[in-house]
């Protein structure tokens, strides 16, 4: 496909756009996996919230 004399501007726009959105998505999924792992580690060690503790004694 011939993008004409301004091809570099069009390609650069799409490249930056894709890079930023892919990076943002990757960061969100990495962050989600990290928080999930931290939560599972804490729960595996027997950590529990105060509210759960109070509920358990009622």
């Amino acid at each position, binding site marked *: 496909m011939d993008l004409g004399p301004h091809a570099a*501007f*069009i390609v650069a726009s*799409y490249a*930056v756009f894709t890079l930023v959105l892919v990076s*943002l998505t990757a960061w*969100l999924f990495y962050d989600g996996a990290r928080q999930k792992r931290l939560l599972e580690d804490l729960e595996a060690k027997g*950590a529990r919230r105060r509210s759960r503790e109070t509920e358990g004694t009622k």
Partner: protein
Amino acid sequence: MMQKQSITQKLANPTRFMALSGTLLPWLAGIAVILIAYGLYRGWTAPPDYQQGETIRIMYIHVPSAWLGMMGYALIAVSSFGLLVFRHPLADVSAKAAAPIGAAFTMLALVTGSLWGKPMWGTYWVWDARLTSVLLLFFLYLGLIALRTSIEDESLASKLTAVLALVGVVILPFIKISVEGLSIPWLGLEIPAWNTLHQPSSVFRTDGPKIHASQLYPLLYSALGFTFLFFTLHMKGMRNEILRRRVKALRIAEVDRAREREAVAAAE
């Protein structure tokens, strides 16, 4: 007597939100991918613009970015209002999650606009009302993120950030008015448009869209697809924030318990 709960009341429970969002997330992502792919395919197979030539292809990512940059800020403002007025438990989670996504789309609007401006206007940047007001919107996003991260007390940080977000919402009508002006005859209000290189809106106009159907429909599909992507990322960000707060609550509870054990041991 059982009172019927509204949708926002039902979603106020983070556990319920996690269950619902976990189900919705893949569907939202799927719809986003299909709409974006279809919109961009239609956009790239449409004939070039009679004036702007092939550079019109940039429109299919620039315009949705600009819309979503503004929509993201509106979402933060509504969430901030929900936090300050209704104390909705998920309002702050929503505002916090929307900030980096809105900032990313605003930055993309600035960068792609600049790359479109150079071949069409002969310059990457001018300090006119539209471009400058969108740059201010980007700085507002950075300000919200910086303010929140600079205050350790999460409750105080969320309230101060919400106040700043509501004060900053004035930028949204300014961005719109900067190119088109505003005329409300029955109020006697007449704000002239500023001098700018940026063209007025071609889609949302009182006299209908001023853009050819071969470009309008791909743009609308693309914008709708990126809007779905925005909400997919926002929902994912909210889920991450809820998990982060659970981790923090567990750590605080564990530290408190350790302190209590130390205090008991010291007393014995």
